[in-house]
């Protein structure tokens, strides 16, 4: 832990660079020094703020620092760095090509970074490369999860097949990301592939699946939701199933919801009552 003296020395340095402003300076007032200084502080908030401020700054000296951030441990920083680069088409083109190659390579960390970069660039043309990566079991779960997340960030229906495949992944984080991304796809009308996740071995995946099926009001999931409401060991899954059944709004769910008003969890009981009120 650093001392207060160190803290105020840091304040003096930061203060020279983080000058006061009465304007938003959205995309204005950035510099390489400010980005580098923010990176040196280790503060995610400060780094992101300075990247945003240098959104359109012509700044050769910024580039090496920002490129380094693409390999940062924190997704938030990798995303912000990729967003900054997305404004620079020459760099963007180079990184797109490199990222597609990294996704096809064997280094899982590079593949993870590549997926985050391509997701942030949000071009549907990246979907085939991400779709190929998301099912590659030789890549780490983190890399596959990043690929599933990127498909959601792009949000195009062409990603549906890949997301469906990712829902069968052996790792729960990938299946969770796939279900989450399913909801981010524009004009998504059906949750049919997600229904299968209501029987997943992982409770967070089942809970997410119930939420997705409910939000999309996919009546094909009603029976599975009712089963989850009646018998899932996890209260959050049962709670989300009750919410989803209320959202689907089929009066045939009345018996299941009525039974759930006696659930041992207050979260479930309350949601079931509200769902019943809406049938």
């Amino acid at each position, binding site marked *: *832990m*650093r001392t207060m003296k*160190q*803290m*105020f020395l*840091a*304040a003096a340095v*930061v*203060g020279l660079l*983080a*000058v*006061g*402003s*009465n304007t*938003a300076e*959205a995309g204005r*007032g950035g510099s390489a020094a400010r980005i580098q200084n923010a990176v040196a*502080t280790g*503060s*995610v*908030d*400060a780094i*992101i*703020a300075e990247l945003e401020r240098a*959104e359109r*700054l*012509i*700044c*050769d000296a910024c580039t090496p620092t920002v490129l380094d951030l693409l390999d940062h441990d924190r997704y938030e920083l990798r995303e912000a760095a990729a967003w900054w680069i*997305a*404004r*620079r*088409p*020459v*760099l963007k083109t180079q990184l797109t090509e490199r990222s597609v190659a990294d996704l096809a390579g064997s280094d899982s960390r590079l593949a993870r970074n590549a997926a985050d970069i391509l997701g942030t*660039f*949000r071009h*549907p043309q990246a979907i085939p490369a991400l779709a190929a990566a998301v099912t590659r079991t030789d890549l780490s779960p983190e890399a596959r999860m990043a690929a599933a997340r990127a498909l959601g960030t792009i*949000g195009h229906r062409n990603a549906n097949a890949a997301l469906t495949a990712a829902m069968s992944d052996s790792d729960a984080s990938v299946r*969770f990301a796939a279900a989450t991304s399913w*909801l981010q796809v*524009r*004009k998504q*009308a059906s949750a049919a592939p997600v229904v299968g996740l209501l029987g997943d071995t992982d409770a*967070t995946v089942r*809970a*997410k699946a119930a*939420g997705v099926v*409910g939000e999309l009001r996919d009546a094909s999931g009603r029976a599975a939701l009712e089963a989850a409401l009646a018998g899932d060991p996890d209260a959050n899954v049962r*709670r*989300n199933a*009750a*919410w989803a059944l209320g959202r689907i709004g089929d009066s045939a769910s009345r018996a299941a919801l009525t039974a759930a008003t006696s659930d041992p969890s*207050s*979260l479930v009981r*309350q*949601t079931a*009552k*509200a769902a019943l*009120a809406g049938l």
Partner: protein
Amino acid sequence: MKRIQLGIALSAMTLGSVVACGGETQGPLDGIDSVVFLQRPKRNEMGDIFQYTSYVPTARLVKLSPPTADGELTEICCSNMGAEYQNIDISGYDISFDAKEIVFSGRLAGAQAYSLFIVDLDTSAVRQLPTNPNRDYVSPVFLPGDKIFFQTNDLDEPGAQQFRDEYERGTTLQMGVMNDDGTGLKLGPRNLSHRVFPTLLSDGRVMLTQWDHLGDMNAGHLVTVHPDMTTVREAFGKEGTGITNSYLKAREISPGRVIAIGSSRDRTLQSGAILDIRLGEPYADGNTIRADRNMSEDTASYRLLTPSVPLGREPSSMTVGRYYDAYPLNAKDYPDLLVAWADGPVESGTLGAAGPGNEANFGIYVYDSQRRTRRPLYDDPAMWDVFPRPLVSRDAPPVIAPSGTHSYDQSTTLIGSMDVHRSTVANLERGTVYGVRVVEGFSVEEGIPDDFGITEHEGAAVLGVAPVRADGSWLGLIPANIPVHLQAIDVFGMTHENANEPVWFSGAAGESRVCGGCHESRTDSVIIDPGLTEAVARGPSDLRATATRDQRVSVGGFTRDGTVGVPWDVALQNIFDAKCVSCHNGTPGPANPSWSISDPMTGATFSWTFDLRGGEAVYGVGDEMFSGYSRSHLSLMGPDMMELEDAGLVIVGEIKTYVEPGNARESELIKKLNPVQQFPTQNLGVRAFPVSQFPAHAAAVGQELTADEYYLLVLMADLGGQFYSRENAPN
């Protein structure tokens, strides 16, 4: 539990305050048995002032009784509520009018979203409200009539995604209302960017912070809205009344008067200085100072109660610190406040550099704004102690009756003005305004993979033009719940000077939003009976009121009436290719001026010659190249001059901007072409500007444009010069 830390006590003493060391009389807290506040584990990541997803488990709601430095702290919620609550984070709360319940926003686990809970203070029972588990619900506020107002990133438009701020990429929060039993959930009309930190006013309205971003506008202002989420009105921050970038966490002191935190958008952990904002003319009512007379944004004023605290994002000084929030204890001219304050450099970078364990430490204090002294009440050094409030009952404000609905299709919103010529910002002479063009806004959530063009403007879709009648009135029906802005246009389709409204607004289904004029005086009365306007008599124009988002695109070619978006590569490039590029083709000469920029440090140079051909274009120096989107786009819009200056580049030649975003009338391109009459009928024989001064270039060189082509170019400029439109979004 460790009590007030020595360092903080000393820092308070250095300001000359009296440090409470025991249970002596508290002055402004007399008669208050308990103070409630929120304890969140310390952190150095909150995002900018609009972010809401900072999750660190084990927050709790607590009560200090009596509210003295040696009072007893008891937990209200939630570690005592069972296993499901052990990892909860709580981001905000409100106390019911009878002080028997608290509604709060909590997140039970990292894989879940923030949802709403109500805890009964007598029984300690907690119930979760049945919100969408995929979406965050935050900042709940009790409303009279057993309702709860909240902010959420949920939305109710099948197939669509919530607005995503084009700049900082956050999924926006919008407003909603539900009954306190969890039924009747309704989401309100949406802003194109964030709305955060709602609070209830004594007149029954809700005040909140709205991020306004349209073109160059980027700031967080205070607005008011009725509890049914209609009738959004500007309250403070615009029109030169403000002092800093953003105003947040407003709390009413007395009618017409609020306390708010003024701060930079980022790097301040959502904390800042304390402002006493008067929304109208201040006057004394006994010991109370009110400001509810003549309330309007242009008569609002403020008093800075913490003048030493930075209003920007620079690190705050030792003993000065920053304030997370403030709650008024009385309504004196200089009020006493319950505040959450942290000492030292409350700035993300400084705290990050100091390392773990040196996060900002917000504690609870009583602040005497006249003497500018703080008296410590409670501080847990491991937690942020924030949002302190007396646990007392209060009068519920009157229930504002739901706004009446219009008499047309109830899925739509009715908008209009009684007399468009009534304006404080534009000189609109009678007979010069043909109509009002209504422009829908959207952002990158629709799939545009980049910015919308070189300019700062968001996606735009023209819903249509409502004609202004002889008495100055106009009416139109638009889709509900979408952000729009208005342009008062002439017969040439060009927006009048200062009549391109710089802010988005929206209306609920069935809502009628008819104003007096075109940003009319906020203090004058509009005496026209709306039932007597000609626009009402004739009925509203249908401005794609029932068209779905997918249907709100250009159809049948890019004609005057069929154009919604103006996709540059499709709608405009064909014009350039057919009628311009034979001369304007990138060959240096009088028809194609050149400019260059160079980096004096590296000697790297970039040159550009005017070129209206299509094809990719970039600009910059060295490896740092920016998208010009296309050769014609870069040539007409020009590079971002401020960034060239910020980068210290040397410019050789004149970089002309031929299109002024949002202002066709003052755009050199439009003047040179001298557009033709568009309304009520297109007429190539009538020009917008005197031909003697502006000799209609295209016609003069034998490349006359069609009337529709003139309109497309005017529309492009008035909308903001975007390259991409909804028509470009991937299917």
